[in-house]
């Protein structure tokens, strides 16, 4: 497990990449919502599924997630996860407060799907872009459950790249997570790619990035 742990520099690099991604997503969301949208990734962890389940669920909290699978140099599935109680908040932030609760509930599914789609595409796309690789990323789907069921915690040795993500939309703060579930080869591939990226950055003038 220690072999798979991220070094500080790897963690910083991934966080940097993720921040670039979510800032792109924020731009897209701003276009959708018509208001200022701020997204940031304050921390990145590489954890086991069990740990991920615990981190996301904090017990038996009900969660809602937007899932997309991706294939490329590294493969797996990406999840944008919110506590279920926050998801309506997020949806209302996106669709606007003129909608009734029933409207918000009706719109929750597609609004979450599209929002998740934007954010996950941005994150994955940025990683692929920065790393100059291409992937195939599926359409989003909504799944609900607790941490265990989302992360299939009891099965496999897959690791989870766990990104904390803060949303601020229409002066509302929502905390969620982006989790990238990958098998060990994919993790190794990702780490390798990140190393290459770091080396590339160190050999290039810093100003080019961003």
């Amino acid at each position: 497990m220690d072999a798979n742990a991220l070094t500080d520099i790897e963690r910083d690099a991934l966080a940097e990449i993720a921040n670039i991604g979510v800032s792109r997503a924020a731009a897209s969301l701003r276009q959708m919502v018509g208001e200022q949208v701020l997204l940031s990734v304050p921390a990145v962890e590489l954890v086991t599924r069990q740990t991920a389940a615990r981190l996301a669920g904090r017990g038996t909290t009900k969660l809602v997630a937007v899932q997309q699978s991706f294939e490329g140099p590294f493969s797996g599935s990406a999840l944008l996860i919110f506590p279920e109680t926050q998801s309506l908040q997020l949806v209302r932030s996106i669709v606007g407060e003129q909608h009734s609760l029933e409207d918000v509930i009706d719109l929750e599914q597609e609004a979450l799907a599209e929002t998740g789609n934007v954010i996950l595409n941005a994150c994955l796309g940025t990683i692929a872009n920065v790393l100059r690789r291409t992937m195939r990323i599926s359409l989003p789907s909504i799944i609900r459950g607790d941490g265990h069921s989302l992360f299939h915690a009891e099965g496999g040795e897959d690791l989870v790249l766990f990104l904390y993500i803060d949303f601020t939309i229409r002066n509302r703060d929502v905390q969620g997570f982006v989790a990238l579930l990958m098998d060990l080869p994919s993790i190794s591939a990702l780490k390798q790619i990140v190393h290459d990226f770091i080396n590339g950055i160190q050999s290039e003038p810093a100003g080019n990035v961003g």
Partner: protein
Amino acid sequence: MSKFDRWSILDALDVGIIVVDEQRCIVGWNDWIARVTATSKSAALGKSLYDVFPTLRNTRLPAAIDDSFQVGSSSILNHSLNTLLPLRGEGGQELLHNIIVRPASSGQCLLQINDVTVSVTRERVLRERQSARYHAIVDSAPDAIVTTGLDGKIQWVNVTAEQSFGYTPAELLGQPIDILLQQAGSLSQAFDQDAVLTQAPARPIQVLGRRKHGQSAQFDVSFAAWAADDRIFVTTIWRDVTERMAAEAALRESEERHRALSEALPQLVWICQSNGSFDYFNPQWHSYTGVAADKHDGSGWLNVIHETDRAGLEAAWEASLATGAVFDFDARLRRADGVYRWFKMRAIPIRSVTGRIARWFGTATDIADLVDARDSLLRSNEELEALVVERTREREVVLRQLHESQKMESIGRLTGGLAHDFNNLLSVILGGLNLLKKRVPSDPHTTRLMDGAIQGAERGATLTKRLLAFARRQDLKLEAVELQELVPNLSDFLRQSVGPGIAIVFDIQPDARPVKIDANQLELALINLAVNARDAMPDGGTLTISCHNEIAYGRNHAPSSLPSGDFVRVSVSDTGVGMTEATLAKALEPFFTTKGVGKGTGLGLSMVHGFTAQSGGAMTLASQVGKGTEVRLWLPCAGDGDLVSVASERKPVRIRRESMRILLVDDDALVRTSTADMLTDLGHVVLEEPSGADALRVLASDSEIDVVVTDFAMPEMNGFDLATKIRQMNGDMPIILATGYAELPIDATINFPRLAKPYTQEQLAEALNTVVNTADAAK
């Protein structure tokens, strides 16, 4: 599959297909999209996507297409979040659509456009219909409605909630529901997982709500949980009961105040329903009646009302119940110890908003003391009134008596004065006639005339004597008289007077005491009364004369004018016609008579009355028409001294015939001359003086005077004063007082011989003899 075949299939699809190359030029355009954009395949192919749909530049679609080319990502763009292509259906209606962007074969990007108009519209119509109903309810609801998740975070609020708490929806959404509460967690019951899952209907919770700026408000919160898409919500309905609770508190306070008032009142208080059924009594009622609280409910209270008052009270109560008039009745209520006390029972109806009588509120006030006071006041008033009537009657009697006595007094004075003057004149006439008779030669004719004149003058003298008796001014010789002796001695004369048709009965108490009276006057009075009785009994009857002691007689049964002391009552009663009230009232007046003209003088009764009064007694009259008349004479008993003096006065008298030197004093020249003539005729020497002063001067200078004869009634110095002065100068000088009536001072201590006017020459001579003999005896 050939290229042709592939597009013919795509053209048959009911979704829109657009394929763009890396320059975003349209390389694929199926029939469906051509139809809904009204842009033919030939017009679209080869054109830039953004030239065909310029508005797309401002959407997320370009970024999604970019990602598709650069990263290979797929994107979905929903109609609800994005404004996309201007698509129109066959009817010209806008088509709602979602777009899916995916990387296609290398260097191409596929846009798949799905028409969702039908399903969205159907859902929207359904939702709007539902929402219309829903909003009609929740937006007009007077209660605040707040929907939260199970975590208590606010998901939705209605308009009333905004107004009630003062927040905008934006300020509330996402906030914990505790923001609406003064005490966090006071609604936690609503979010209890177990309770929500059992779906048990919950009772409203009373909470203290908190408005935006911290003000408190009381709410009844009802709540219910509901689920949507596996998600559980809790809707809370907040009813603002601040005012209601304030009103309830005010009502409670008001009721409390009324209860306190009715229990603090000293009165007995009761309340009953509109049908008269009692359902409240204050503690005073129970402590007064001593009956347990429930025994008097309904109509049980009637048992404490006094039987006598019960029927009246029930009638009054029924009347009040029927008419709504104020009930007011005084009745006696039984106290715990069985004593009945008077109470004023009063009740007023309490009306409901509609004006109907809802209840009666009544009091019973103890007025026993008041009633007692009123009764005793009434009693004392009645007594006072009776007393006033009695006193007034007494006063009227006294006044009448006073008036009567004043009348009699003035009549007496008038009569007395008149009689006095007549007396003097008659003295002169009688004196003159007597002297004349001596000197005129005896001739039968002359003698008869003379005797007639003398007789007439004597009758005149008798008349004046009676008048004087009535006026109580006659000269009474008061002496002790024994009635046992006097009355029987009179019987012969009485029988002659009344005649044979009338029986005379004497009823003389053997031990009747002697009375102090003038015996001659008493005889005269009895004869007078007997004659009156005879006249009252023309057809005969019985005359009764009775004498009884009335010793130590008080005022109780005696005439009011009678002083207390010892008396003998002498009654003269007849069985005659009697007198009417009117006659009785006038019977004592002089000259009043019921007899025919010429038959009586009208002086009888009045003379008797005057005589008894002058003697210190009284006379009363009682008479009933048809039954008879009784005259009662109250005569004072004689003392021991009276008996002695009477005896001592009886002395033998010697008559002297020698000439004397006499000083005659009289202010009336006519009388003086007449008397001087009589004295001269008797052979005496007479010195005449008109006044006392002149007489004293003569006496001082003439020591030869033997006797002084003086009139009593004279101006300046009367006869008594003169006699007193002479007695002081010369204790032995014999003096005769000639008096017309008893006007000597009652306290006269010196007893001078008196000569009653008018007097004859014989009477004068006898008087002279008496005084001279007495003076000689004393020497």
